[in-house]
Protein backbone atom coordinates (compact mmCIF):
# COMPACT_ATOMS: atom_id res chain seq x y z
CA UNK A 1 0.00 0.00 0.00
CA UNK A 2 1.21 3.47 -0.90
CA UNK A 3 2.34 5.43 2.16
CA UNK A 4 1.63 9.01 3.18
CA UNK A 5 4.68 11.26 2.90
CA UNK A 6 6.10 13.69 5.46
CA UNK A 7 8.60 16.03 3.84
CA UNK A 8 11.02 18.48 5.47
CA UNK A 9 11.11 21.70 3.44
CA UNK A 10 14.44 23.52 3.69
CA UNK A 11 14.50 27.18 2.69
CA UNK A 12 17.87 28.71 1.86
CA UNK A 13 18.90 32.35 1.39
CA UNK A 14 22.13 31.72 -0.49
CA UNK A 15 24.19 31.55 2.73
CA UNK A 16 22.25 29.59 5.33
CA UNK A 17 18.97 27.87 5.99
CA UNK A 18 16.33 30.34 7.09
CA UNK A 19 12.89 29.93 8.58
CA UNK A 20 10.32 32.60 7.79
CA UNK A 21 7.07 33.61 9.45
CA UNK A 22 4.33 34.36 6.94
CA UNK A 23 7.14 34.61 4.39
CA UNK A 24 8.82 37.43 6.36
CA UNK A 25 11.36 37.76 9.21
CA UNK A 26 13.82 35.14 7.99
CA UNK A 27 15.67 33.62 10.91
CA UNK A 28 18.86 31.67 10.36
CA UNK A 29 18.45 28.08 11.43
CA UNK A 30 21.53 26.27 10.25
CA UNK A 31 23.73 24.80 7.59
CA UNK A 32 22.00 23.00 4.69
CA UNK A 33 24.55 20.22 4.33
CA UNK A 34 24.41 19.33 8.01
CA UNK A 35 20.63 19.54 7.95
CA UNK A 36 20.43 17.24 4.92
CA UNK A 37 22.72 14.78 6.70
CA UNK A 38 20.48 14.80 9.78
CA UNK A 39 17.28 14.36 7.77
CA UNK A 40 18.87 11.53 5.80
CA UNK A 41 19.88 9.78 9.00
CA UNK A 42 16.30 10.22 10.24
CA UNK A 43 15.22 8.32 7.16
CA UNK A 44 12.74 10.95 5.97
CA UNK A 45 10.47 10.18 3.00
CA UNK A 46 11.67 13.04 0.81
CA UNK A 47 13.36 16.41 1.06
CA UNK A 48 12.55 19.76 -0.55
CA UNK A 49 15.37 22.31 -0.77
CA UNK A 50 14.67 25.72 -2.19
CA UNK A 51 16.73 28.87 -2.56
CA UNK A 52 14.02 31.43 -1.78
CA UNK A 53 16.09 34.48 -2.73
CA UNK A 54 17.67 33.31 -6.00
CA UNK A 55 14.99 34.62 -8.38
CA UNK A 56 14.50 37.87 -6.47
CA UNK A 57 18.26 38.52 -6.34
CA UNK A 58 18.69 37.60 -9.99
CA UNK A 59 21.03 34.75 -9.05
CA UNK A 60 21.21 31.21 -10.28
CA UNK A 61 21.18 28.51 -7.66
CA UNK A 62 24.72 27.44 -6.66
CA UNK A 63 25.02 24.02 -8.31
CA UNK A 64 28.25 23.04 -6.57
CA UNK A 65 26.71 23.73 -3.20
CA UNK A 66 23.37 22.11 -4.03
CA UNK A 67 25.19 19.00 -5.20
CA UNK A 68 26.76 18.72 -1.75
CA UNK A 69 23.28 18.85 -0.23
CA UNK A 70 21.95 16.23 -2.67
CA UNK A 71 24.96 14.00 -2.04
CA UNK A 72 23.87 13.64 1.59
CA UNK A 73 20.46 12.30 0.54
CA UNK A 74 19.46 8.74 -0.28
CA UNK A 75 15.81 9.63 -0.73
CA UNK A 76 14.05 11.71 -3.39
CA UNK A 77 15.07 15.36 -3.40
CA UNK A 78 13.22 18.30 -4.93
CA UNK A 79 15.30 21.40 -5.68
CA UNK A 80 13.98 24.87 -6.42
CA UNK A 81 15.13 28.46 -6.74
CA UNK A 82 16.03 30.65 -9.68
CA UNK A 83 14.91 28.24 -12.42
CA UNK A 84 14.45 30.22 -15.64
CA UNK A 85 15.09 27.76 -18.44
CA UNK A 86 15.00 24.08 -19.35
CA UNK A 87 18.83 24.18 -19.16
CA UNK A 88 18.52 25.14 -15.49
CA UNK A 89 16.28 22.10 -14.94
CA UNK A 90 18.68 19.85 -16.82
CA UNK A 91 21.57 21.11 -14.67
CA UNK A 92 19.70 20.17 -11.48
CA UNK A 93 18.61 16.74 -12.72
CA UNK A 94 22.20 16.00 -13.81
CA UNK A 95 23.56 16.52 -10.30
CA UNK A 96 20.99 14.13 -8.86
CA UNK A 97 17.82 16.15 -8.18
CA UNK A 98 14.75 13.96 -8.61
CA UNK A 99 12.32 16.82 -9.09
CA UNK A 100 12.62 20.55 -9.61
CA UNK A 101 10.39 23.16 -8.02
CA UNK A 102 9.21 25.97 -10.27
CA UNK A 103 7.49 29.12 -9.09
CA UNK A 104 8.16 32.38 -10.93
CA UNK A 105 8.35 30.80 -14.37
CA UNK A 106 5.00 29.10 -13.76
CA UNK A 107 3.48 32.54 -13.15
CA UNK A 108 5.31 34.52 -15.83
CA UNK A 109 5.37 32.02 -18.67
CA UNK A 110 2.62 29.43 -18.43
CA UNK A 111 3.79 27.28 -21.32
CA UNK A 112 7.08 26.70 -19.48
CA UNK A 113 5.58 24.01 -17.21
CA UNK A 114 4.23 22.09 -20.19
CA UNK A 115 7.49 22.40 -22.07
CA UNK A 116 9.46 21.17 -19.04
CA UNK A 117 7.05 18.28 -18.42
CA UNK A 118 7.32 17.13 -22.03
CA UNK A 119 11.13 17.32 -22.01
CA UNK A 120 11.86 15.74 -18.64
CA UNK A 121 8.66 13.89 -17.70
CA UNK A 122 5.84 15.28 -15.58
CA UNK A 123 6.98 13.27 -12.55
CA UNK A 124 9.96 15.59 -12.03
CA UNK A 125 8.19 18.93 -12.48
CA UNK A 126 6.77 20.33 -9.22
CA UNK A 127 5.15 23.74 -9.01
CA UNK A 128 5.23 25.92 -5.89
CA UNK A 129 1.85 27.50 -5.17
CA UNK A 130 1.96 30.02 -2.32
CA UNK A 131 -1.53 31.01 -1.18
CA UNK A 132 -2.59 34.00 0.89
CA UNK A 133 -6.11 34.48 2.20
CA UNK A 134 -7.80 37.58 0.80
CA UNK A 135 -10.51 38.00 3.44
CA UNK A 136 -13.43 37.23 1.16
CA UNK A 137 -13.04 33.47 1.40
CA UNK A 138 -10.59 33.26 -1.48
CA UNK A 139 -6.86 32.80 -1.75
CA UNK A 140 -4.57 34.88 -3.91
CA UNK A 141 -1.42 33.47 -5.45
CA UNK A 142 1.41 35.11 -3.52
CA UNK A 143 4.65 36.29 -5.08
CA UNK A 144 7.13 39.15 -4.57
CA UNK A 145 4.95 41.32 -6.77
CA UNK A 146 1.17 40.92 -6.41
CA UNK A 147 -0.20 38.46 -8.96
CA UNK A 148 -3.92 39.11 -8.60
CA UNK A 149 -4.37 35.43 -9.51
CA UNK A 150 -6.89 33.19 -7.80
CA UNK A 151 -5.18 30.11 -6.33
CA UNK A 152 -7.87 27.68 -7.45
CA UNK A 153 -7.74 29.02 -11.03
CA UNK A 154 -3.96 28.84 -10.95
CA UNK A 155 -3.75 25.21 -9.75
CA UNK A 156 -6.21 24.23 -12.52
CA UNK A 157 -3.87 25.81 -15.07
CA UNK A 158 -0.84 24.13 -13.48
CA UNK A 159 -2.56 20.76 -13.80
CA UNK A 160 -3.61 21.38 -17.40
CA UNK A 161 -0.04 22.28 -18.31
CA UNK A 162 1.01 18.89 -16.95
CA UNK A 163 2.86 19.49 -13.68
CA UNK A 164 3.58 16.32 -11.73
CA UNK A 165 3.10 17.77 -8.26
CA UNK A 166 1.94 20.91 -6.48
CA UNK A 167 3.67 22.13 -3.34
CA UNK A 168 0.95 24.20 -1.74
CA UNK A 169 2.07 26.58 1.00
CA UNK A 170 -0.23 28.69 3.12
CA UNK A 171 1.54 32.03 3.51
CA UNK A 172 -0.71 32.90 6.47
CA UNK A 173 0.25 29.73 8.35
CA UNK A 174 3.96 29.70 7.36
CA UNK A 175 6.14 29.47 10.49
CA UNK A 176 3.20 30.04 12.83
CA UNK A 177 3.12 26.41 14.05
CA UNK A 178 -0.60 26.64 14.81
CA UNK A 179 -1.98 24.12 12.34
CA UNK A 180 -2.53 23.82 8.58
CA UNK A 181 -5.03 25.81 6.52
CA UNK A 182 -7.18 22.71 5.99
CA UNK A 183 -9.84 24.70 4.15
CA UNK A 184 -7.30 25.77 1.53
CA UNK A 185 -5.98 22.22 1.20
CA UNK A 186 -9.48 20.80 0.82
CA UNK A 187 -10.46 23.32 -1.87
CA UNK A 188 -7.28 22.68 -3.86
CA UNK A 189 -7.76 18.90 -3.60
CA UNK A 190 -11.33 19.36 -4.85
CA UNK A 191 -10.01 21.31 -7.82
CA UNK A 192 -7.15 19.10 -9.08
CA UNK A 193 -6.09 15.44 -9.22
CA UNK A 194 -2.38 16.24 -9.35
CA UNK A 195 -0.57 15.11 -6.17
CA UNK A 196 -0.42 17.94 -3.63
CA UNK A 197 2.02 18.48 -0.75
CA UNK A 198 0.42 20.67 1.94
CA UNK A 199 2.82 23.03 3.71
CA UNK A 200 2.48 25.75 6.34
CA UNK A 201 1.48 25.57 9.97
CA UNK A 202 2.48 22.09 11.11
CA UNK A 203 3.80 22.66 14.64
CA UNK A 204 2.87 19.38 16.35
CA UNK A 205 1.97 15.82 15.32
CA UNK A 206 -1.67 16.67 16.17
CA UNK A 207 -1.67 19.34 13.45
CA UNK A 208 -0.66 16.74 10.88
CA UNK A 209 -3.31 14.34 12.15
CA UNK A 210 -5.93 17.07 11.84
CA UNK A 211 -4.81 17.79 8.26
CA UNK A 212 -4.94 14.12 7.23
CA UNK A 213 -8.29 13.55 8.96
CA UNK A 214 -10.02 16.65 7.60
CA UNK A 215 -8.74 16.40 4.03
CA UNK A 216 -7.79 13.71 1.55
CA UNK A 217 -4.14 14.84 1.47
CA UNK A 218 -1.40 12.21 1.00
CA UNK A 219 1.67 14.32 1.68
CA UNK A 220 2.60 17.16 4.03
CA UNK A 221 5.67 19.33 4.29
CA UNK A 222 7.02 21.29 7.24
CA UNK A 223 10.12 22.95 8.58
CA UNK A 224 9.63 24.91 11.82
CA UNK A 225 8.53 21.77 13.72
CA UNK A 226 11.87 20.18 12.88
CA UNK A 227 13.91 23.22 13.99
CA UNK A 228 12.02 24.44 17.04
CA UNK A 229 10.43 21.37 18.68
CA UNK A 230 11.50 17.94 19.86
CA UNK A 231 9.32 16.22 17.23
CA UNK A 232 10.85 14.39 14.27
CA UNK A 233 9.16 13.03 11.15
CA UNK A 234 9.01 9.70 12.98
CA UNK A 235 6.79 11.24 15.70
CA UNK A 236 4.47 12.67 13.06
CA UNK A 237 4.20 9.37 11.22
CA UNK A 238 3.75 7.45 14.47
CA UNK A 239 0.80 9.70 15.21
CA UNK A 240 -0.66 9.14 11.73
CA UNK A 241 0.05 5.40 11.87
CA UNK A 242 -1.69 5.08 15.24
CA UNK A 243 -4.80 6.53 13.60
CA UNK A 244 -4.81 4.11 10.69
CA UNK A 245 -2.96 6.10 8.04
CA UNK A 246 -0.38 4.06 6.09
CA UNK A 247 3.02 5.45 7.10
CA UNK A 248 6.50 4.28 6.30
CA UNK A 249 8.78 3.20 9.12
CA UNK A 250 12.19 1.67 9.05
CA UNK A 251 12.47 -1.52 11.06
CA UNK A 252 14.51 -1.00 14.22
CA UNK A 253 18.14 -1.95 13.91
CA UNK A 254 18.12 -2.12 10.12
Amino acid sequence: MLKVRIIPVLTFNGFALVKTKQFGNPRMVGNPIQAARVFNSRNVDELVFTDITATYSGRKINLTFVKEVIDECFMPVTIGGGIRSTEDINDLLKIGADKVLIKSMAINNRSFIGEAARLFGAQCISVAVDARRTGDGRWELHSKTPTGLDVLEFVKMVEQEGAGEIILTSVDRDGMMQGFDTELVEQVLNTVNTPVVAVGGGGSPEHFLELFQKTNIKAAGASAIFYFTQFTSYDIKKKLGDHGFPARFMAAGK
Partner: protein
Amino acid sequence: MSCVIINYGMGNLASVSKALRKIGVAHSVSAHPEEVMAAHTLVLPGVGSFQAAMENLNSSGLAEAIKMRIGSGDAKLLGICLGMQLLADTGFEPERCSGLGLIPGEVRALECDMPIPHMGWNNLDIKNPTYFGELEDLDFYFVHSYHFVPQHEADIAATTDYGGPVVAAVQRGPVFGCQFHPEKSQRSGLMVLEHFFAQNA
Protein backbone atom coordinates in the same frame (compact mmCIF):
# COMPACT_ATOMS: atom_id res chain seq x y z
CA MET B 1 35.26 -7.79 -10.18
CA SER B 2 34.67 -4.67 -12.21
CA CYS B 3 31.39 -2.86 -12.32
CA VAL B 4 30.19 -0.42 -14.93
CA ILE B 5 27.18 1.89 -14.84
CA ILE B 6 25.99 2.11 -18.42
CA ASN B 7 25.57 5.68 -19.62
CA TYR B 8 23.22 5.85 -22.58
CA GLY B 9 21.95 9.37 -22.04
CA MET B 10 18.90 8.54 -19.91
CA GLY B 11 18.96 9.92 -16.38
CA ASN B 12 19.78 9.15 -12.75
CA LEU B 13 23.48 8.22 -13.19
CA ALA B 14 24.64 10.57 -10.42
CA SER B 15 22.30 9.04 -7.84
CA VAL B 16 23.14 5.46 -8.75
CA SER B 17 26.86 6.20 -8.69
CA LYS B 18 26.49 7.89 -5.29
CA ALA B 19 24.65 4.86 -3.85
CA LEU B 20 27.37 2.49 -5.07
CA ARG B 21 30.03 4.72 -3.50
CA LYS B 22 28.04 4.67 -0.26
CA ILE B 23 28.09 0.85 -0.11
CA GLY B 24 31.74 0.71 -1.19
CA VAL B 25 31.38 -0.72 -4.71
CA ALA B 26 34.13 0.47 -7.05
CA HIS B 27 32.69 1.25 -10.46
CA SER B 28 33.05 3.29 -13.60
CA VAL B 29 30.44 5.12 -15.64
CA SER B 30 30.78 4.41 -19.30
CA ALA B 31 29.10 4.79 -22.69
CA HIS B 32 31.52 2.45 -24.47
CA PRO B 33 30.54 -1.09 -25.56
CA GLU B 34 34.11 -2.36 -25.04
CA GLU B 35 34.00 -1.35 -21.36
CA VAL B 36 30.68 -3.16 -20.99
CA MET B 37 32.27 -6.25 -22.55
CA ALA B 38 35.11 -6.09 -20.00
CA ALA B 39 32.95 -5.64 -16.88
CA HIS B 40 31.64 -8.34 -14.57
CA THR B 41 28.69 -6.40 -13.24
CA LEU B 42 26.55 -4.18 -15.41
CA VAL B 43 24.20 -1.57 -13.96
CA LEU B 44 21.54 -0.23 -16.32
CA PRO B 45 19.78 2.80 -14.81
CA GLY B 46 17.31 4.98 -16.68
CA VAL B 47 14.52 7.50 -16.64
CA GLY B 48 12.49 8.31 -19.74
CA SER B 49 10.68 6.46 -22.51
CA PHE B 50 11.34 2.84 -23.51
CA GLN B 51 11.61 3.57 -27.20
CA ALA B 52 14.04 6.49 -26.82
CA ALA B 53 16.18 4.36 -24.50
CA MET B 54 16.33 1.44 -26.95
CA GLU B 55 17.21 3.80 -29.80
CA ASN B 56 20.14 5.12 -27.75
CA LEU B 57 21.26 1.62 -26.71
CA ASN B 58 21.02 0.26 -30.26
CA SER B 59 22.72 3.14 -32.06
CA SER B 60 25.63 3.19 -29.60
CA GLY B 61 26.24 -0.57 -29.83
CA LEU B 62 25.54 -0.86 -26.09
CA ALA B 63 22.47 -3.11 -26.56
CA GLU B 64 24.54 -5.65 -28.49
CA ALA B 65 27.36 -5.46 -25.92
CA ILE B 66 24.98 -6.00 -22.99
CA LYS B 67 23.35 -9.02 -24.66
CA MET B 68 26.73 -10.56 -25.56
CA ARG B 69 28.20 -9.93 -22.12
CA ILE B 70 25.25 -11.48 -20.29
CA GLY B 71 25.12 -14.32 -22.84
CA SER B 72 28.72 -15.21 -22.02
CA GLY B 73 27.52 -16.46 -18.62
CA ASP B 74 29.97 -14.92 -16.15
CA ALA B 75 28.49 -11.44 -15.77
CA LYS B 76 25.46 -10.16 -13.92
CA LEU B 77 23.19 -7.20 -14.52
CA LEU B 78 21.09 -4.88 -12.40
CA GLY B 79 18.40 -2.86 -14.17
CA ILE B 80 16.77 0.03 -12.34
CA CYS B 81 13.35 1.52 -13.20
CA LEU B 82 13.42 2.06 -16.99
CA GLY B 83 16.61 -0.04 -16.99
CA MET B 84 14.57 -2.90 -15.52
CA GLN B 85 11.81 -2.49 -18.10
CA LEU B 86 14.35 -2.59 -20.96
CA LEU B 87 15.16 -6.20 -19.99
CA ALA B 88 11.82 -7.24 -21.55
CA ASP B 89 11.23 -8.43 -25.13
CA THR B 90 8.82 -5.67 -26.00
CA GLY B 91 7.83 -2.19 -24.88
CA PHE B 92 4.95 0.10 -25.85
CA GLU B 93 6.17 3.51 -24.72
CA PRO B 94 5.10 5.32 -26.79
CA GLU B 95 5.08 2.80 -29.71
CA ARG B 96 5.70 -0.93 -29.85
CA CYS B 97 9.41 -1.66 -29.99
CA SER B 98 11.87 -4.40 -29.06
CA GLY B 99 13.71 -4.42 -25.75
CA LEU B 100 16.90 -6.24 -24.75
CA GLY B 101 15.04 -9.54 -24.49
CA LEU B 102 16.91 -10.78 -21.41
CA ILE B 103 13.74 -11.62 -19.46
CA PRO B 104 10.73 -12.75 -21.53
CA GLY B 105 7.81 -10.38 -21.19
CA GLU B 106 6.27 -7.08 -22.13
CA VAL B 107 6.20 -3.61 -20.63
CA ARG B 108 2.72 -2.11 -20.74
CA ALA B 109 1.06 1.06 -19.47
CA LEU B 110 -0.22 0.79 -15.88
CA GLU B 111 -4.00 0.57 -15.92
CA CYS B 112 -5.80 0.89 -12.62
CA ASP B 113 -8.17 3.18 -10.75
CA MET B 114 -5.28 4.82 -8.91
CA PRO B 115 -3.44 7.97 -10.00
CA ILE B 116 -0.76 7.41 -12.64
CA PRO B 117 2.23 7.56 -12.22
CA HIS B 118 2.53 5.23 -9.26
CA MET B 119 4.73 7.54 -7.20
CA GLY B 120 5.88 7.22 -3.63
CA TRP B 121 6.84 4.65 -1.01
CA ASN B 122 5.33 1.20 -1.26
CA ASN B 123 6.08 -2.17 0.35
CA LEU B 124 6.91 -5.44 -1.41
CA ASP B 125 5.54 -8.94 -1.53
CA ILE B 126 8.78 -10.86 -2.05
CA LYS B 127 8.57 -13.96 -4.28
CA ASN B 128 12.27 -14.66 -4.70
CA PRO B 129 14.45 -13.62 -1.75
CA THR B 130 17.81 -14.00 -3.56
CA TYR B 131 18.52 -10.26 -3.51
CA PHE B 132 16.07 -9.25 -0.82
CA GLY B 133 16.97 -11.36 2.18
CA GLU B 134 14.91 -10.28 5.17
CA LEU B 135 13.51 -7.11 3.68
CA GLU B 136 9.81 -8.02 3.79
CA ASP B 137 7.58 -5.14 4.97
CA LEU B 138 10.06 -2.42 4.11
CA ASP B 139 9.11 0.37 1.73
CA PHE B 140 10.79 1.33 -1.52
CA TYR B 141 10.46 4.42 -3.67
CA PHE B 142 8.58 4.04 -6.96
CA VAL B 143 7.96 6.44 -9.85
CA HIS B 144 6.55 4.78 -12.99
CA SER B 145 3.66 4.78 -15.44
CA TYR B 146 4.50 1.48 -17.20
CA HIS B 147 5.03 -1.94 -15.68
CA PHE B 148 6.82 -5.16 -16.55
CA VAL B 149 4.59 -8.16 -17.29
CA PRO B 150 6.89 -11.20 -17.39
CA GLN B 151 5.90 -14.21 -19.49
CA HIS B 152 6.98 -16.63 -16.75
CA GLU B 153 5.75 -16.18 -13.21
CA ALA B 154 9.02 -17.65 -11.95
CA ASP B 155 10.82 -14.52 -13.16
CA ILE B 156 8.85 -12.29 -10.76
CA ALA B 157 11.09 -11.53 -7.77
CA ALA B 158 8.66 -9.19 -5.99
CA THR B 159 5.35 -7.44 -6.45
CA THR B 160 3.85 -4.36 -4.86
CA ASP B 161 0.20 -3.45 -4.33
CA TYR B 162 -1.11 -0.52 -6.34
CA GLY B 163 -4.73 -1.13 -7.24
CA GLY B 164 -3.70 -4.80 -7.56
CA PRO B 165 -0.34 -6.53 -7.75
CA VAL B 166 2.29 -4.74 -9.84
CA VAL B 167 5.65 -6.34 -10.62
CA ALA B 168 8.28 -4.58 -8.48
CA ALA B 169 11.31 -6.76 -9.31
CA VAL B 170 12.26 -9.42 -11.83
CA GLN B 171 15.05 -11.96 -11.79
CA ARG B 172 16.18 -14.59 -14.26
CA GLY B 173 19.57 -16.11 -13.50
CA PRO B 174 22.18 -13.34 -13.29
CA VAL B 175 19.77 -10.69 -14.54
CA PHE B 176 17.94 -8.70 -11.85
CA GLY B 177 15.77 -5.67 -12.28
CA CYS B 178 13.85 -3.47 -9.87
CA GLN B 179 11.04 -1.13 -10.80
CA PHE B 180 11.64 0.90 -7.64
CA HIS B 181 14.70 3.09 -7.15
CA PRO B 182 17.07 1.39 -4.67
CA GLU B 183 19.33 4.46 -4.86
CA LYS B 184 16.42 6.59 -3.58
CA SER B 185 14.97 4.12 -1.07
CA GLN B 186 17.13 4.98 1.90
CA ARG B 187 18.54 2.08 3.88
CA SER B 188 16.11 -0.48 2.42
CA GLY B 189 17.38 0.35 -1.07
CA LEU B 190 21.03 0.28 -0.08
CA MET B 191 20.46 -3.15 1.49
CA VAL B 192 19.11 -4.51 -1.80
CA LEU B 193 22.19 -3.13 -3.58
CA GLU B 194 24.45 -4.69 -0.95
CA HIS B 195 22.76 -8.07 -1.39
CA PHE B 196 23.08 -7.85 -5.15
CA PHE B 197 26.76 -6.93 -5.09
CA ALA B 198 27.60 -9.46 -2.39
CA GLN B 199 26.67 -12.35 -4.66
CA ASN B 200 28.65 -13.69 -7.58
CA ALA B 201 27.27 -13.88 -11.08
